[in-house]
């Protein structure tokens, strides 16, 4: 290198020698590039060709075309499941990684038919219809990925739903042969019927290393809490028989037992219950006199009387689900489908999806020992609660039991919730039936707080060009002791706000915000300048509110920080003739809205209004230059489920001679439009969230015969 440097510095005389040197140099360069290209090409195409061939194999349409895999006798067997496995010890979270959607990726192995050394399949049934449904549901879902390297969870296509049809050793060997098995890490097995005669283990007997088990019929000793998932035993009957939902309410029978394999000791107890309570208890069994056949599974008998199963389940308030040799019973699914409240008697049983479902609201769990007391226990449950449980039971079935898809999706969602706990579904999302979700309210400001008086409130004055009146408003408000800051929202783009020197002198900071467009929504923008929780929204012509009235309004807001607390009260009414809502601004005995021309509210609602307003309401308001206050009332009432608070008797705000209906609102068409707003908003919200009340808030000593000097808020106007 050193010499070549020397030569080059000497100039053109040495070019020929240089050329050969360069040629070698270029050749090497070229070959390196070429090699690189080949390597890239290999890298690009090689793995894909393998994968695509796997994909092509899937294109064959029959299950029997799936490739045959022979398991060598000596193939390794996984270890038995480790009972101490938990997500943090046996699950590789690195595979799931951080992802903005907070959704795990699930890979399904392509179908293979495993046979042993001599060609006997590992399972007597092979792929079952149910497992096929489950896998195709998963592959249709958002969880699915076809990229093995990006998967977080792996699902073998080996069907282990029913242990009875499996050859245990060979199935285990087959599992261990899966290309990504890796000690079963992040593998999920679905099993509904574990164990086998005579002692029926409560978890799948197939050795499975660290694989997660979604099992039906776990007992508390085999269930690894927070690792395994307890799933229901699917009842194929539910797909065959359509049981329409019945209105909750009392049924013909109080307790019904339809199970056919009840231990003698328990049957004796049940019969005693029947003797004591007669007609209320119906105890059915297999039909012995019927000609054997397929139909017998759909019939139940009491003495000579024949009943249709599962239809009969709908005729009872409570249905007994006793354990058999197995803990998990398919009957549970039938019972839930019928909207009958299950009475579950299976000690140590981990109820399906108990990690997220609140079974106390849908079932009665009674220790087996207490079977004789069942009737008394059930009788002590109030009727209304039984009805709610009936509804809840049916909802659990619909959402989580009704199909293999439902079962599979629920299982994956539960695992997903563990891996991304900060994005987990809430109790309400899991447990509230749609009808309750629809009407129930979970206020974002649910904690009962009375915020301290300091640091006061921020007054936000919306103005266009009424400077004189604006200045009067500012002067009046500035007298309120708890005022922390004044924010003027200047909505006029054609005109600049007056010079600083012209503004009234106030003791608190005054800030003018110029907006880009003349929109009503601007007044509800969550400006950074609003540093207090409490906002006083006020129009630039509300000059009659006294300082006492405003301070009192703020004090009332402190006690209701989650409501609109304001002065002008309005009402919505149902117009029977027109068959729609009507806006009422007359002085009535009721209030359902307070106008934001003068109202206190939490800054959080600004944020909601600006970013979370449903539908096109915000645009509608801006286009019509009207109803922003009604929209705000809808928004707050909808999310908190509470009525606004009208404070003080004040009804006139602009001048003593004015009528109640003022300014903008005078116009008749304007009023019609406001009625329209209510109807429009009600349809967007899908409901009428406004709540009507008959009260307003006054100071404790208002109009009392008491020295005015000693009253905290003496100057409360009467109109």
């Amino acid at each position, binding site marked *: 290198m050193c010499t070549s440097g020397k030569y080059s510095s000497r100039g053109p005389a040495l070019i020929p020698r*240089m050329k050969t040197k360069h040629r070698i140099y270029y050749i090497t360069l070229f070959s390196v590039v070429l090699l690189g290209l080949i390597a890239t090409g290999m890298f690009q195409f090689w793995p894909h060709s393998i994968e695509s061939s796997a994909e092509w194999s899937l294109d064959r349409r029959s299950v029997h075309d799936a490739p045959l895999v022979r398991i060598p006798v000596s193939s390794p067997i996984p270890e038995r499941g480790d009972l101490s496995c938990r997500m943090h010890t046996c699950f590789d979270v690195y595979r799931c990684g951080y992802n903005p959607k907070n959704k795990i990726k699930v890979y399904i192995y392509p179908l293979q038919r495993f046979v042993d050394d001599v060609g006997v399949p590992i399972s007597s049934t092979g792929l079952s219809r149910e497992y096929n449904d489950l*896998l195709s549901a998963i592959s249709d879902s958002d969880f699915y990925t076809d990229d093995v390297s990006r998967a977080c969870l792996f699902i073998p296509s080996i069907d282990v739903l029913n242990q009875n049809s499996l050859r245990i050793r060979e199935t285990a060997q087959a599992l261990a042969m899966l290309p990504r098995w890796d000690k079963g890490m992040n593998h999920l097995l679905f099993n509904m019927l574990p164990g086998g005669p005579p002692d029926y283990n409560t978890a799948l007997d197939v050795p499975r290393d660290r694989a997660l088990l979604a099992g039906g019929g776990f007992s508390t000793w085999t269930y690894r809490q927070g690792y395994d998932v307890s799933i229901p035993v699917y009842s194929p009957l539910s797909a065959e028989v359509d049981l329409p939902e019945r209105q909750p309410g009392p049924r013909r029978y109080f307790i019904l037992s339809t199970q056919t*394999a009840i231990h003698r000791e328990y049957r004796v107890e049940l019969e005693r219950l029947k003797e004591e309570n007669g007609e209320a208890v119906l105890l059915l069994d297999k039909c012995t006199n019927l000609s054997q056949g397929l139909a017998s599974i759909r019939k139940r008998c009491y003495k000579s009387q024949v009943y249709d199963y599962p239809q009969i389940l709908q005729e009872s308030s409570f249905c007994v689900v006793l354990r058999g*040799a197995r803990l998990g019973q398919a009957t549970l699914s039938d019972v839930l489908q019928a909207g009958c409240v299950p009475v579950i008697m299976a000690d140590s049983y981990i109820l399906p999806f108990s990690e997220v479902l609140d079974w106390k609201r849908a079932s009665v769990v009674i220790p087996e020992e207490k079977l004789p007391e069942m009737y008394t226990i059930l009788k002590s449950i109030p009727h209304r609660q039984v009805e709610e449980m009936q509804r809840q039971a049916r909802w659990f079935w619909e959402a989580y039991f009704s199909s293999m898809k439902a079962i599979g999706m629920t299982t994956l969602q539960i695992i997903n919730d563990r891996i991304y706990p900060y994005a987990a579904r809430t109790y309400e999302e899991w447990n509230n039936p749609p009808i309750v979700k629809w009407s129930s309210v979970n206020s974002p400001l649910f904690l009962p707080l009375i915020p301290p008086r300091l640091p006061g409130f921020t007054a936000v004055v919306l103005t266009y060009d009424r400077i004189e009146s604006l200045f009067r408003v500012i002067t009046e408000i500035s007298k309120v002791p708890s005022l922390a800051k004044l924010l003027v929202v200047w909505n006029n783009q054609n005109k600049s706000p007056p010079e600083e020197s012209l503004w009234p002198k106030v003791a608190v900071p005054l800030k003018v915000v110029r907006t880009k467009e003349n929109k009503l929504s601007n007044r509800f923008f969550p400006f950074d300048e609003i540093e207090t929780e409490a906002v006083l929204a006020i129009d630039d012509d509300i000059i009659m509110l006294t300082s006492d009235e405003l301070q009192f309004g703020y004090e009332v807001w402190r006690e209701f920080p989650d409501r609109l607390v304001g002065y002008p009260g309005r009402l919505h009414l149902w117009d029977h003739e027109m068959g729609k809502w009507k806006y009422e601004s007359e002085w009535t*005995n009721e209030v359902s809205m307070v106008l934001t021309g003068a109202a206190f509210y939490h800054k959080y609602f600004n944020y909601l209004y600006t970013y979370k307003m449903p539908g096109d309401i915000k645009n509608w308001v801006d286009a019509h230059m009207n109803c922003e206050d009604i929209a705000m009332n809808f928004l707050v009432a909808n999310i908190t489920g509470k009525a606004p608070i009208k404070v003080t008797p004040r009804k006139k705000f602009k001048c003593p001679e004015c009528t109640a209906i003022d300014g903008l609102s005078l116009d008749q068409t304007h009023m019609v439009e406001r009625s329209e707003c209510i109807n429009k908003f009600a349809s967007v919200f899908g409901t009428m969230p406004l*709540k009507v009340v008959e009260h307003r808030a006054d100071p404790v000593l208002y109009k009392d015969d008491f020295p005015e000097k000693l009253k905290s808020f003496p100057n409360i106007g009467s109109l």
Partner: protein
Amino acid sequence: MQARKKYVLLGLCTCCWLLLYYWGGLQDRLLGLITHRRGEVARPWPDWLDRVLLPDYADQAELQHGGGPGESPRQRQQTWAGIYKDSHCRMDTCFDFARCQGQSGFRVYVYPTEKGEQVSESYRKILTSVAESRYYTSDPREACLFVLGIDTLDRDQLSSQFVPNVDERIRGYPLWNDGRNHVIFNLYSGTWPNYTEDLGFNVGQAILAKASLNTEHFRPGFDISIPLFSKDHPQKGGERGWLVRNTVPPQRKYLLMFKGKRYLTGIGSDTRNALHHIHNGKDIVSLTTCRHGKDWEKHKDARCDHDNQEYERFDYQELLHNSTFCLVPRGRRLGSFRFLESLQAACIPVLLSNGWELPFSDVIQWNQAVIEGDERLLLQVPSTVRAVGSDRVLALRQRTQMLWEAYFSTVDKIVLTTLEIIKDRVYSHVSRNKLMWNALPGGLLVLPEYSTHLAHYPFYYLNLGISPGQEFTAVIHATSPLVSQSQPIMKLLQVVSKSKYCSQIIILWNSEKPPPHRSKWPPMPVPLTVTDGRRKTSSRFLPHAAIETDAVLSLDEDTVLLTNEINFAFHVWRSFPERIAGYPPRSHFWDPVKRAWGYTSKWTNEYSIVLTGAAFYHRYYHHLFSHYLPPSLRALVDRTLNCDDILMNFLVSAVTHLPPIKVAQRKQYKEMPALQGSKAPWANPEHFTQRQECVNTFASWFGYMPLVHSQFRLDPVLFKDHVSVFRKKYKDLERV
């Protein structure tokens, strides 16, 4: 020239390379497209042609048969009891339910502490909490649950509070019974260097209520994980959470903070040694110090000096107040004091403690209050917490406060929660559901014996999307004998029965004379029942079975009200079903001179009590009054024939954290006593002194002053407005 050529060539090569690379990708995509069209890539699990021919996973008959009847249940019970002991304990096998089925119900016995026995401050508090709880019994024969007198909190052999020979001692107890039905409280187990879960004695079949429980050793449905609390944790009362307002946007100055020890060696050091990685000195402050223990300098590493210096720059309290999230990493043990500290400070805990069974995990849904991180994913924590939206921060933060106040702020609450969880297991069919545990006001204030139905409580209306019932029951407290038809009670009966919302009237007869014959009462449009109160003042808040409506209107016999006032108050109550809504306001105040609470019936600008002589409230409060409050307070009420109304106000405000609601203008709710022979007890000055004392007695039982002041009353919308009276619905209220 040469150089240029070289560059051109090089450039060309790169271009080729890039082209090929992209072409490869393109081809790949093309391939994908083709296969898409051909079949199964988008939906890689094939839609088998023979799907319908696939077999059922199980025969239907087999499914319905459920594996057959199985072995004899009785035999099974016996086998279980033999196998599932000790580390496999469950309530079914290791707990004697028969002990709890007696007349007395759920009773807890505390072993007497032996003379000269050293009991730590914390354990003394636990024992006091049990002894003062409503489940305490001094008779071991009626007990369902036993608590040891031996201090088992600190089982670190190196600790000064370690009690030796526990094994021998407990085996000497005749009631020990291998630990059956015993609860053992423990905060620290194991010792340096491994800090195992070993308690140093055989727990047997006793329920462990232990801090820092590991999921692996935790016996689900049997053991109870409790939080680690310091010896300064208050017995009762307790500080409230620090959240006083919900600021918007909810993010605080710092996003995430940690300040604590770094272990240079041994268990727990992995996590704590890594914490400095996420420190950025701006919005994430993660500070560790090596300076703890005696010989830290021996293990000191290169970071120590720098870290120690940085550590001193920030104040822990300041960080706690100003941080949105707080890291709660494991220490030597899984739980740490940080957990409760950040919960109280409304700093959302970010847990880094793999395998920690969270406190009261049986009943509390922690994912709604904390961020459960993973020690393995420390470096993801910043992006995880950054991704938590404002709405969720707001919700998580409020929930930390709810849980803190419901279950953790005092030793009393921690112990009671432990007992209530066990009780819920013992009487599983009369127990709280998860909503009751996780919604306001928390499980301790929900007594399932009253009802397991959510709609029967005043707290869940919004949750269920329903509103309180349209009717009320009037309960009139009568103390004077019936002598004339012009007595105030007769007038009151008329007024109440005229209300269209009144479904029935109950007269609680507390007079010296026996109740008059039925015919003496005027005919009523609603059912009238007379119940004997056995001359106990507290009986007015007994949960009478006859009360079936949500609302109760509580009245004194001499209350003067108009029917319209009743109607209006009922309307108001329906908007605030969890509070007391009524007429006579009173107030409490702090008297700095006497250093005691004062009570006043003077007219003031604010009130904190609404007397139950004319007030609506939910019937559940009857049950709470009679079963939640200790017998001592009810006895005080009966002894003095006074203060029942104040106690009710204390109770309701303690539940809601909110003031009662004063309705409309009326303040004087009784006729002024006639000059001759005024017998009204409240006209007596002694009566008033008693009430002062009551306020202080109650406050000391609650451990704090639950009453809250309010500055407004609720009037009808057109009250005293210059509007035609014909337009007013409640016009007669103005004449009062």
